């Protein structure tokens, strides 16, 4: 056990101190894509909106969106647990995107990812980006990033989500490869099988994790799974102690086997006393007992304030774009790529003056 602990500690220490960040050096394909896409827009106008922070995309969009039949939940089904301290390293990954304004054909966007690890009660991070790139409505899909057009129709929103997924998946995979016997936390779910989120990549991630005895745990802040218009997290509303409810079978049987694939066992979990309940997905091929053990170890190792792991919270904070980030990136686009900033025409304001609605009338 002590030998394994030393190995575990060494492995996380090694990847933290690689010199190219926790997840390693950014693949050249990302940088090439960014440079090429933005170089092609040199000298173009970028139409910006004043309250750019309002445009921040939601961090995660679940593939599922359904109102479910659920029946009653027996108290015996709720697994109460006590946090168990462990030496398992914890690493969390999160990414964010932002649209900085509109180009003549498409948008100027930025992407940032963060990996946070917990080692000997000390948090370390590596932040990748911001990566600046443009996405066009008529853009040819970039196969090297796994970006393909959806039904032949290219759409900036879809493309942006895929670019982000691409970086996120690379970070998750790199971290999982570097860790041994660790807990890998990701933001969102382990649901795959959509064009944005191919099941092959998710399968590969979980496979790599299993080989290194890592446990991938996905925690979703906003789940689309609902029971009679209420989120499934409401099932644990009345419980105050740390507990888990396995809702996997009841949910899975209400979805067809194709195309959406639930690659994680779905729990509703409250990870801290009086904390918020979250949807938690754990690798399906791991036994329920091991899943519960992994979650107990997570809550005994990481700080779980308000029911949310600190590593994931920090990863979210570090990857999120602030308004000043947006200003800095716009300024860089001007200085390095000759993009000219122009305030976007406030159409509503032009038409309706003070009687319009929405942001345009405020500025």
């Amino acid at each position, binding site marked *: 056990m002590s030998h394994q602990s030393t190995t575990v500690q060494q492995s996380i220490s090694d990847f933290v101190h690689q010199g190219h960040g926790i997840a390693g050096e950014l693949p050249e394909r990302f940088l090439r894509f960014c440079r090429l896409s933005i170089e092609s827009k040199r000298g173009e106008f970028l139409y910006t909106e004043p309250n750019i922070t309002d445009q921040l995309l939601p961090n995660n969009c679940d593939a599922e969106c359904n109102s479910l039949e659920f029946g009653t939940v027996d108290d015996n089904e709720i697994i109460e647990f006590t946090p168990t301290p462990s030496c398992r390293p914890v690493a969390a990954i999160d990414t964010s995107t932002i649209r900085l304004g509109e180009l003549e054909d498409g948008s100027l966007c930025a992407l940032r990812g963060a990996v946070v690890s917990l080692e000997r009660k000390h*948090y370390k991070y590596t932040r990748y980006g911001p990566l600046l790139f443009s996405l066009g409505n008529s853009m040819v899909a970039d196969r090297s990033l796994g970006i393909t057009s959806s039904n032949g129709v290219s759409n900036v929103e879809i493309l942006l989500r895929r670019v982000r997924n691409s970086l996120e998946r690379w970070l998750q995979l790199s971290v999982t490869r570097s860790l041994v016997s660790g807990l890998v936390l990701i933001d969102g779910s382990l649901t795959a099988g959509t064009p944005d989120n191919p099941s092959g990549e998710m399968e590969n991630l979980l496979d790599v994790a299993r080989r290194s005895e890592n446990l991938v745990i996905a925690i979703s802040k906003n789940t689309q799974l609902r029971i009679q218009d209420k989120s499934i997290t409401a099932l644990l509303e009345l419980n105050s102690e740390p507990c888990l409810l396995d809702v996997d079978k009841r949910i899975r049987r209400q979805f067809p086997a194709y195309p959406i694939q639930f690659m994680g066992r779905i729990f509703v979990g409250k990870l801290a006393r009086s904390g918020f309940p979250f949807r938690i997905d754990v690798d399906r091929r791991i036994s329920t007992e091991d899943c519960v053990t992994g979650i107990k170890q997570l809550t005994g190792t990481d700080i779980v304030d308000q029911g949310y792991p600190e590593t994931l919270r920090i990863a979210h904070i*570090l990857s999120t774009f*602030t*308004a000043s980030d947006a200003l800095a990136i716009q300024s860089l686009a001007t200085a390095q790529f000759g993009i000219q900033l122009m305030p976007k025409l406030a159409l509503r304001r032009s038409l309706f003056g003070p009687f319009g609605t929405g942001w345009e009338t405020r500025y």
Partner: protein
Amino acid sequence: MKILKKEGDSIQLLCFPDEDVEKGDYILIRDGTKERALISQIIDVQYANIPGILEDLLRDGISESSLTGEDVDPFRVSSQLEVLKDTRLLIAKIRGAMQNNRISRDVSWLPSRIRAHVEVMSPNLLTRELSDKHAFELGSTRRSAVIASDLSALDGRLNIITGRKGTGKSHLSKLLVTTLVKHGAPVVVLDVNGEYVNLGRMNGSTEPSTKIVPLIPGVNLRFSLAEIGLSTFLGILVHALSLPDNSSRVFARIWRQLEEQNSLTMDALRTAIANFECHESIKDALQARFNTLDDSGIFTNDRKVALSLDEVFRKQGSGMALVINMKNQPSTLRRITVELFISKLTDLLSSHKLKGLFLFAEEAHLYLQETYWDDIVTRMRHLGLFATFITNQPDTIDGGIYRQADNIFIFNFSNEHDLEIVSKVAKLDGETIRMIVRELPPQRCLAVGDLVGNFPMVINVRPLEVQTMGATRYFFQDEIAVA
């Protein structure tokens, strides 16, 4: 720098980290291609309110305390972010304009926000229109090694030097005194702390200068009754010693009788008061006041030791300072001395025996009657007595005097009450005074008025070559020096 906003005479500018500006600096806002520019002075430097800065700083705070890590930033966006975070907001006041390279006060126009070019301005451009007939070095600014001014801007003017203790008021006052003397002007210093007496000695020298004449009341500052005259003597009795009207009329009669008998001496006065037939209360009042004056030692019957101001100024020729050293003297004697001196000087100026005179009064509230303030500021000014008041208690000078001051030098004040009083100066807005003055370091002052071309300037007062004394004395001097 970029113009952000203008409201009234205030203008706000964004200033980027590589631009070096401070409070008090002047900037020139050139209006694109037109040959005109706004002259503005920075009165406050703040952080620019960048959107999202709170979130950024909180994030930085987290990563500085409990987190370590690194950023892989291939586009170097962080450098742009640092620029944003350190961008400052300058609050400036419009002071004038530059039209075809000439200073003008026409500021009714607005420069283009897009095409305006903002640059730091040398303060020498602002004082260059002062006459250089009596040029002297006042000090320096951050932007200019030498700020030259002209003494004519003190001539016929009312000046105030104020600031907290130990900030350098007396130093500036001494600089002005020695400069005036050097340029041939007569100066009188009312010195309550005895700190001007060595002004005549160059640093390292033991030889006193003949241009600085220290006078100690009762020692080498004594007057004969003939030199003083009835009106001056009576003035002292009434104003300095509060002699009632009835008694003053009796005293005038006694004086005239002795004058007619050609026997006007202190002894004769004492005897005449004792023997004069009048009401006992009047006699008592006169005797009490007379004894006070006699005990002061400031009057003498010996004409050889008596000081004749007329003769002193005539003999000395141009350029001299009489320093009335009133250190350790009781307040009554100070009041008598000052009353006597000012009265005598007024006589000399009225009779045109003196062309003009610069009076430097340190902490004047300690010896100057309230009735005299207005007199000095208005009537005596027309006669040629040009006062400079020096004080660390600004509320001891009447608000009306601040409004009339032609030059004012404000050293550091941090007390709100003091700042409120000095902000009544007519030549400058209160906001500028409050913003700049509270952060001035020692030996640096905000100069306002004719001496700086009516462009307020933050000036490091030039060091003096003469022995100054008067610097605040410390018990732990050695330790302070080492530190």
